[in-house]
C-alpha cells in the first residue's frame, strides 16, 4: 500500500522551460532521424528559386533587383508545407491526446513545437541561401550581422503564427488549403519587412532605412510569440 505514496512523493514538478525543451528535443529528434523532409523541402525551395528566375528571364540586373523577394517567397511557400506537417506525427499515431495529457501547460507544447519549426525554417533559409547567392549573384558580405538578424526575425515571424494555425487546421481534411489561406495574410508584415531589409542589405542601405524594417519585424515577432502562446491553450482545450 505504500508504493503509490512513494511514487507521488518522488514526482517532480517540471518547469515550463524544461517542458518546452523536452518537446522541442522530441520534435527535432524525430525530424533529424529521418531528414527526408528537410531534404525534400530544400529541393522544393531551390526549384522555386529557379522557377522565379525562369519566369523573369535571364537578365542578371532584373534578377538581382528582385532576388530578396524570390528568396523570401520560396522560404514562406515551403515553410507552409513544413508547418502543416508539424502536428502530423501526433495525429497519425493518435498521440496528440497523449501529448495533451502530459502534465505540462499547453503553452509548453506550443513553444516547444514553435521553436522546432523556427529551427527548421532557419535551416531551410541557410540551405537555400547559397543557391540564391549563386543564381542571382548577390553580395551579402557587407553587413553579415544584419543579414543574420533578418534571417532570425523572418524565421521567427513565420514560425510563431504558423505553428498556431497548423494546430488549428491540423484535423481538417483540407488543411493544405486552409493553412496558407489563414496564414499568408498574417505573414505580410513579416515578409514585407524581410524582403525590404534584405534588399537594403544587398544594395548596401545608402539612406540607413533598415532600422525601421527591423522595428516592424521585432514588433510582429513579439506580438505573435506572446499572443499565439496564449491562444494555443484555448485551441487545445477543444
Amino acid at each position, binding site marked *: 500500500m505504500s508504493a503509490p505514496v512513494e511514487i507521488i512523493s518522488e514526482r517532480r514538478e517540471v518547469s515550463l522551460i524544461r517542458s518546452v525543451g523536452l518537446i522541442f528535443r522530441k520534435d527535432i529528434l524525430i525530424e533529424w532521424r529521418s531528414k527526408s523532409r528537410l531534404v525534400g523541402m530544400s529541393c522544393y525551395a531551390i526549384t522555386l528559386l529557379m522557377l522565379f528566375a525562369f519566369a523573369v528571364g535571364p537578365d542578371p540586373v532584373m534578377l538581382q533587383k528582385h532576388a530578396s523577394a524570390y528568396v523570401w517567397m520560396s522560404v514562406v511557400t515551403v515553410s507552409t508545407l513544413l508547418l502543416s506537417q508539424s502536428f502530423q506525427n501526433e495525429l497519425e499515431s493518435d498521440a496528440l491526446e497523449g501529448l495533451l495529457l502530459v502534465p505540462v501547460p499547453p503553452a509548453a507544447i506550443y513553444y516547444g513545437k514553435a521553436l522546432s519549426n523556427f529551427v527548421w525554417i532557419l535551416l531551410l533559409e541557410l540551405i537555400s541561401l547559397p543557391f540564391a547567392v549563386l543564381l542571382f549573384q548577390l553580395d551579402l558580405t557587407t553587413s553579415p550581422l544584419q543579414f543574420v538578424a533578418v534571417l532570425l526575425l523572418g524565421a521567427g515571424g513565420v514560425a510563431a503564427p504558423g505553428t*498556431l494555425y497548423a494546430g*488549428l487546421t491540423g484535423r481538417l481534411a483540407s488543411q493544405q488549403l*486552409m493553412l496558407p489561406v*489563414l496564414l499568408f*495574410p*498574417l505573414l505580410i*508584415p513579416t515578409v514585407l519587412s524581410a524582403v525590404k531589409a534584405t534588399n537594403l542589405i544587398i544594395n548596401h542601405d545608402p539612406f540607413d532605412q533598415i532600422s525601421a524594417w527591423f522595428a516592424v519585424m521585432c514588433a510582429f515577432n513579439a506580438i505573435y510569440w506572446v*499572443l499565439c502562446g496564449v*491562444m494555443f491553450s484555448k485551441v487545445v*482545450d477543444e
Partner: protein
Amino acid sequence: MLILGVLLIVGAHAWGLTAPLNEAQMGITGRILYVHVPTAWVALLVFCIAFGAAIRVLWAGSKRADYIEEASLEVGVVLTIMLLVQGSIWGRATWETWWTWDPRLTSSAVMAISFAGILVLRGMLHNPDKRRTISAVSTIIAFLNVPVVYFSVKLLPSIHQLQSTPNTVDSEMHWPLRTAAFGFLFLSLGLIGLRARVAELRAFRTEEEPDLPPVPETLQVEV
C-alpha cells in the same frame, strides 16, 4: 433599426448630393465621400464587434457571442468588399487607375481576405464547440489587421489621404457625412442582428434534431 439605417442613408445622400459643391479638386466625384468614408468607418467598427464577441466566446463560452461574431464577420467582409469597389471607382476618377499598391488599399484587401478565410474555415468545421473556439482564436489574431489598416495612412504615407473625419471636410459636407455614417451603422447593426438570429436558429435546428430510430441490425439471410 434596418429601416432607420436606410432612411438615414437615403436622407444623407439627398442632402449631400444637392448641397452646394465646395470641392475644388475632385468636383462631382468627390461626392462619393458620403458612401465611401462611412463604409470604411463602419467596416472597422463591425470588425471591432467581431473581436469583442470572439473574446467573449473564449473567456465566457457564450454561444450568443459566437452568433454575433459570425454575423459581424460576414457584414464586415461585405462592407470591406464594398469599400474596395467604391475606392477603386473613386481612384479611377481621381488617380486615373483602378488599383494602386498603396498601403491603405493593400492592407484593406488583406483584411478582407483574412476575415473571409475565417468564414471559409467556419464552414469546414462541423463540431459546434470546435468551430466556436477555432473561429474565435482566428478572429482575435486576424484583428491585428484592423489597426494596421487604420494607421497605414499615417505610418506609410502614400497616394491615399489621411484618415477622414467630419472635421477634415467642408462644413457643408459635415452633417450629411455624419448622417450617412449613422445610417450605415444602424443598417449594419440591423443586419448583424438578423444574421445572428439566423445563425442561432440554424444552430438550434442542428442541435435539437429529433432522435432518429436505431439503425436496424443487418438481416442475415440463411441460404
